[in-house]
């Protein structure tokens, strides 16, 4: 492991690897990435792998739209190969008029930004997914450019791109302390040795507080447990992801053939908890069989849990902090994987002192002290 670094990125998920890759592309030298376990082990590798542009805030729409453009070329650009980006659409279903009205309002924001989403009738939804339960369905919303992507391959593509440009990636390396003098960071201490550096990027998602505490800071990011199950693989039969706001769940058939589905309970205590429970399996099975009755004969093979590292308004926290120089945050949105390409790009631009492609000042951690939250209601 290197003894000195110009930049240390903490976190080997999609955001950490994207930040390292983008910094290297910007010309930063001597970048070291530290990952406590293996790449994607935290939140990225446990996510539902959906990619969505139908958001309710301009910022989320812009970041996700920009990210989709990068996902299209990432595999080729890094030389990794196919990262399984399939734009087979998201079908958002509502079973009551209040939800319909809320999502219809979001369309106005999306259309203003050029996102090709639209409201459709239950009958049209049934044409898209013939076995969806349209009984009592109020409306549906569809965006063809949403879809699925393989989170492991995507992260490894970022990692390959980064390593090819000289980034050192250290797996199974735990950060135990960050040393500072006044406003200046001086080094990052790990269980494998110490790295002298004056610049650190915190990209650990739900573990944000653990790293923050090392500098005496309290980052407003809480882990919210979400559980997922996957079924045996079947022939491709469902194009779009089916997401129901009545059930707060999503169901998607991935290219491999398995159906991935999940939801989270926002009322659980906020802590890191990787346990998966029978109660989830039963609830999720009920939600799935209601929405897609044909799934009743499909077998579940595996379930697991992961976390959304989520800020008070569900938006990313990007950029420097007021207390220290050279300490940057790139986390906090609970959907970091799908936004990771743009988050990496924006952070790299910011750190290089350039004009950022999107105005990320509004995503600074200082928005919480000022009360300028950007509330996103559409996180599932």
């Amino acid at each position, binding site marked *: 492991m290197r003894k000195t670094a110009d930049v240390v990125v903490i976190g080997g998920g999609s955001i950490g690897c994207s930040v390292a890759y983008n910094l290297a592309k910007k010309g930063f030298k001597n970048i070291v990435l530290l990952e406590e376990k293996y790449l*994607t082990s935290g939140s990225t590798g446990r996510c539902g792998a959906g990619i969505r542009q139908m958001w309710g805030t301009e910022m989320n729409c812009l970041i996700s739209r920009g990210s989709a453009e990068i996902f299209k070329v990432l595999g080729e650009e890094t030389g990794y190969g196919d990262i399984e980006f399939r734009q087979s659409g998201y079908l958002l279903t509502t079973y009551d008029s209040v939800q319909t009205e809320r999502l219809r309002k979001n369309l106005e924001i999306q259309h203003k930004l050029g996102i090709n989403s639209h409201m459709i009738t239950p009958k049209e939804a049934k044409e898209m997914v013939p076995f969806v339960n349209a009984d009592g369905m109020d409306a549906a919303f569809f965006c063809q450019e949403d879809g699925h992507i393989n989170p492991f391959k995507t992260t490894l593509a970022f990692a390959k791109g980064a390593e090819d440009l000289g980034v050192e990636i250290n797996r199974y390396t735990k950060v135990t302390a960050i040393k500072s003098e006044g406003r200046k960071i001086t080094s990052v201490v790990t269980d494998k040795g110490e790295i002298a550096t004056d610049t650190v990027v915190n990209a650990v998602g739900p573990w944000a507080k653990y790293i923050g505490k090392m500098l005496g800071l309290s980052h407003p990011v809480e882990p919210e447990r979400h559980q997922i199950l996957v079924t045996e693989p079947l022939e491709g039969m469902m194009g779009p992801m089916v997401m129901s706001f009545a059930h707060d769940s999503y169901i998607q058939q991935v290219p491999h053939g398995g159906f991935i589905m999940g939801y989270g309970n926002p009322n659980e205590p906020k802590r890191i908890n990787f346990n998966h429970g029978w109660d989830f399996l*039963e609830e999720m099975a009920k939600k799935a069989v209601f929405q897609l009755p044909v799934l009743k004969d499909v*077998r*579940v093979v*595996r*379930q697991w849990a992961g976390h959304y590292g989520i800020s008070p308004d569900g938006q990313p926290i990007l950029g420097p902090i007021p207390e220290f120089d050279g300490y940057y945050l790139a986390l906090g949105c609970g959907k970091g994987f799908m936004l990771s390409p743009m988050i990496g790009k924006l952070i790299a631009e910011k750190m290089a002192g350039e004009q950022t492609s999107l105005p990320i000042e509004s995503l600074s951690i200082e928005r919480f002290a000022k009360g300028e939250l950007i509330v996103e209601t559409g996180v599932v």
Partner: protein
Amino acid sequence: MNKKDIYLCRCENFTLEDLHNLLDSGITSMEEIKRISRCTMGPCQGKTCKELIAKEVAAYLKKDISTVDLPTYRAPIKPVKLGEIAGGDKNA
């Protein structure tokens, strides 16, 4: 026997050659090997192949098998139909 004819994971058609290709490329974490290749992720959930693959990883790295990062076994141990789970007590 040819390495490409030795199936380590039968559910996902993962051969000894596939494993060695990944190891040769520098990917030595079994957790990452699983996620790239899908080995141990099929209907048997690694019950027949996980230790076999771990043994081959250890042999390649010339390390003890206990040093291999073995992926977790997860519930349900046997595949169960969604309809049976959703039925709850009715199917007890």
